[in-house]
């Protein structure tokens, strides 16, 4: 699985290197570079329209970059050979509303080749993990918005992926549930899983190992939350983000 861009022994779980992508006249990605190491939680932070979703789509092979390199576990995008190690939670809940929660999980278990004998155990594990065990047989359309978000996360985890790619999984989720999500992510990280998460909630960013501030399709600054605050001389990440944006506009180094 080792490929170019490998750091040390293992290839990064996710790698984007100088990726460009335009939709007509709109430049969505302008030389975006980032990597997520194994066992790392990487927060991808930026305003709406900064290119976060496009970067994720390029990484997963859902959109073809105009130039640059996108890799998952050292496999070039579209990363078919590595895709079964990835769990993806799109921005929309992306579940089948006319199916029960379990039926949704079963679909993704089949698609990701989870052994049939292990499905019961896996589905009960992930449903406990997202606290939906009691709703296993409910139709998704009968669940509340927060429950659907959690079911969506469960569907991305049923095949026990090594890399979770979460596109704004906490939008519209109440603070209590958001905190619960982050507790879950910590557990996963403890099991050596990598997480690439986009958000525009700054308070969530503090719980990431590393953060990349993204604006207009490129990273304007990257580092641990502490480093970024220090480098920007700011007291909050929000201020830090604005400081880096200002510096870039003035042509200074990030």
């Amino acid at each position: 699985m080792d490929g170019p861009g490998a750091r040390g022994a293992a290839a990064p779980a996710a790698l984007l290197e100088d990726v460009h992508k335009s939709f007509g006249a709109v430049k969505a990605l302008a030389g975006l570079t980032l990597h997520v190491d194994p066992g790392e939680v990487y927060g991808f932070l930026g305003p709406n329209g900064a290119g976060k979703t496009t970067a994720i789509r390029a990484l997963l092979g859902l959109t073809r970059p105009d130039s640059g390199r996108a890799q998952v576990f050292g496999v070039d995008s579209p990363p078919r050979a590595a895709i079964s190690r990835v769990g993806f939670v799109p921005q929309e809940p992306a579940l089948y509303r006319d199916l029960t929660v379990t039926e949704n999980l079963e679909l993704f278990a089949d698609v990701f080749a989870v052994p049939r004998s292990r499905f019961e155990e896996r589905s009960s594990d992930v449903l406990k993990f997202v606290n939906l065990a009691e709703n296993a047989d409910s139709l998704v359309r009968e669940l509340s918005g927060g429950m659907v978000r959690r079911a969506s996360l469960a569907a991305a985890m049923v095949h026990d992926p090594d890399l979770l790619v979460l596109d704004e999984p906490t939008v519209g989720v109440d603070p209590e549930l958001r905190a619960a999500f982050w507790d879950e992510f910590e557990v996963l990280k403890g099991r050596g899983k990598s997480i690439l998460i986009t958000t525009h909630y700054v308070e969530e960013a503090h719980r990431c190992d590393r953060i990349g501030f993204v604006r207009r399709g490129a990273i304007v600054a990257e580092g641990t939350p502490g480093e970024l605050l220090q480098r920007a001389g700011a007291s909050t990440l929000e201020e830090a983000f604005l400081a880096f944006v200002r510096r870039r506009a003035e042509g200074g180094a990030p």
Partner: protein
Amino acid sequence: MNRRRTIAITRRVLRGVKHDRRSMGLMVVAPMMAMFVFGIAFSGDVTDVPLAVFQADEPVTLPNNTTVSLGASIVGHIDTHVLRVVPVASAADAVAMVERGEARAALIIPQNFTSDVFASLAGAPGAEAPAVELRLDRSNVNVAATIGRVVAEAMRAAVEEFGRAPVTLDDSQAVYGKDAKFADFFIPGVMTFAVFLITNLLTITGFVQERLSGTLDRLGASPLTAGEIVLGYGLAYSVMALVQAAILLAVAILAFQITIVGSIALAFALIALLAIASQALGILLSAAARTEAQAVQFIPFLVFPVFLLSGIFWPVEAIPPELRPFSWAVPPTYAVEGLRDIMVRGWGLEHVWWAFAALGGFAALFILLARFSLLRSRE
């Protein structure tokens, strides 16, 4: 091509429909309604049409002392299920009734009709063949044609009663469809129409939903291939089409007493193939719609050409010759013709292979295009 992944898609589509009462209703109730509406409305059985009859003929006594009146016999032979005979006192009254819209035609049998007929047959000098007059209200050609046919039959029966028919037409031994009724002709049409339309409708809306809800992205970021998605859908819709067809056939047999001469298995195979082609077309069309509302706007563009061109309710031969080539460009035409060949004519694969080949070709083409459209959406 991975079987487990393909079947997973098939199962998810079927389960979705199972949990969604609306789709179930659309699949089963709508075609049944169509069948009854069309079956009853188009059955071709015009009934109880008022016919004003002025019968002035007088009986003639034959040498063997029997009295005959051809005119009375004609009126007696009129199929009263179809035509309601209203006797009137004069030819003018009969026509007046038509003019007032109280009758659809006036049948006028002149005085001395029977004796004039005998005179004409005997070759009496100066004798002309007498005529029965039928004054039609042709504002409705269907009704007028039916009246003409029923009166002609009555005349033939009356003439035959006296053994005087110079020639007869024996059409009792049909090559195909000996006992075929209109229902036998239109049920294959309704089945085709229902499967084509509903499969299309469900795939277009279903696929627009896949795109909008993000599930298609999720499938895209999985080991599934575009081909597996299209085939998985195709399998699901062919299963549903078979269920639909079975229900429709059962109702057709029970309610319309149609007879199926050929192989039901062959008919079902053709319907499944139609469903596969229709769903791939649906996926293809869904790529052009951004919302479900837009998707629904495609439906008229599908319905009208198919309704008009595919020979569902009238034969392709009844379509103007300039348009006929287009008939063969819409997939349902092959299904309708093939189903009629199988169900009414009892033909086997050796005769209807062309319908299978054509629908198979459409299915393959649409699957390739649908797969291509899925891959393109990842640009």
